[in-house]
């Protein structure tokens, strides 16, 4: 097989797997481990498509360090009050948009279903991830993850990462 194609498939596999782990750890409530998927100086942003497409900065959640991700989770566990709920992510295929020296940009469609304490499952948030992933280290990590969501009305609150 052509080496370039092989390398491309390898990177695609790494990006797909990283997103799968990201979804799995959130859905399985392994939130304390979730920041480990990011670099220390990462960007993590959840932004409405309505704002993103107008080039407006306002995000539902905006973190610019791994420390802020940890703080979000500690806050969720200790500070915030919210309805009991869980997530289930369904991911579309991950497409590598560009690659430069093992730093890749990738896009993945996602849908998050939310199940509340009454047992009902509803579509909570749907959109796409725009990721920057560093594959040069021992294991790949997000240097940036931006979730641009179509579901413009947030149902009650947003406390878990998307």
């Amino acid at each position, binding site marked *: 097989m052509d080496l370039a194609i092989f390398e491309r498939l390898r990177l695609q596999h790494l990006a797909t797997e990283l997103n799968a782990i990201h979804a799995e750890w959130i859905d399985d409530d392994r939130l304390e481990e979730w920041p480990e998927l990011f670099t220390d100086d990462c960007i993590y942003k*959840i932004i*409405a498509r*309505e*704002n993103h497409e*107008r080039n*407006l*900065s*306002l*995000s*539902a*959640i*905006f*973190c*610019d*360090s791994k*420390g*802020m991700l*940890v*703080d*979000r989770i*500690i*806050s969720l566990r*200790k*500070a*915030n*009050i*919210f*309805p009991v709920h869980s997530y289930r992510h369904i991911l579309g295929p991950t497409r590598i948009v560009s690659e430069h020296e093992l730093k890749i940009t990738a896009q993945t469609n996602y849908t998050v279903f939310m199940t509340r304490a009454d047992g009902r499952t509803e579509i909570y948030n749907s959109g796409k991830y725009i990721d920057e992933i560093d594959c040069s280290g021992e294991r790949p990590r997000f240097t940036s993850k931006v979730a641009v969501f179509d579901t*413009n*009305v*947030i*149902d*009650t*609150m*947003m*406390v878990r990462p998307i």
Partner: protein
Amino acid sequence: MTETALRVSQNSDASKVAGYRVPYRVFTDPEFYRREQENIFQGETWSFVALEAEVGEPGDFKSTFVGETPVIVTRAIDGKVHAVVNRCAHRGALVCREVRGNRPNLECIYHQWAYDLEGNLIGVPFRRGLRGQGGMPGDFDMKQHGLRKLRAESIGGLVFASFSETVEPLRDFLGPIVIEHIERIMCKPIKVLGDQRQHVHGNWKLYAENTRDPYHASLLHLFHNTFGLYRSTQTGKSVMDASKRHSLLYSIAASNDDAADKQAYGDSRTFDTEFKLQDMSLLKGRQEFDDGITLVILAVFPNLVLQQIQNTLAVRQIVTKGPDAFELVWTHFGYADDDAEMQAIRQKQTNLIGPAGLISMEDGEAVEIVQRAIIGEMEAKSYIAMGGGRAENADHLVTEGSIVGFWENYEKLVGYGTMS
């Protein structure tokens, strides 16, 4: 604190103790919802509809709501802001189907009836028929068939609209305290940073209570209390306009005394000295106002909250969605002359507010747990007595006086009696 709470409940004989009571039925009964639409949102009030900055240029429009009624806010060629009902004068279709945009005029797609940006009918296809056949009646008068116009007025770049021809002027409706605090925040040109939309499964009046309630803020919101953004021990006030329909709540974080505050809150869940942030940059702000006020919640009857929390500035518009739901539209803004550092501070601090806000997300849950608990209740009433149970101003933050003010106005406009 826990002891005090117990003592009050043991001694309170509900019928003798001062306090205000609201029948839970007003939060669930469709009859009250219908009367509110008529007597409040379509009645003698002004509702917030837009920031002027959202319709900055002639031709700009924004779709929004007054109560549940769809409304379009436009800036016409004359530079003035107008508000019209988003319903074609022909057969009732939505004229404007987008959230926002810019257009030379408003055109209904159904039969292409066209209106200018002030809502005047300017075009009706086949009005005189085709080849001598059909057409509108000879006495059809375009002037009689415009979009329904609301009165629209602005103060400090906030646009309010009213269905009433007889409502008092906006400045009188708001009163000097509200105007002073609108103008304090809207002191220079603003820049809109974006919108957030939050669907809450509860009655809109539970949110009106919530935003007039300095009592809950440090007890529900751990973030507020632990980091001293807001504590009931702070220097602050909970005051109303003369009519008592609006509420101004403000506090000054520089008045915190961590040791004394710790004692006041005892072992309260929300005063947690063990809770630390890894990245404290979230709370690094800048003093923007000389008065030292770090938190303003200006609840303007019936549908607006104008807020400053640290360096976050926003309007929250309440849109009713039936008796048991409302949508909260947050429009965040900064100032047009914000430098790069200030823009970064605001972007980071938006983590504090909105539907994902570290200090505001709890309010959605607070509203919903009331709504779920009062379902089907036709007789029982709430009990509002903190601070004395009367609609009185307080120069402290241990009061529910402004909530009573809201309800006295509600009683005047809607009443608590039932039709049946």
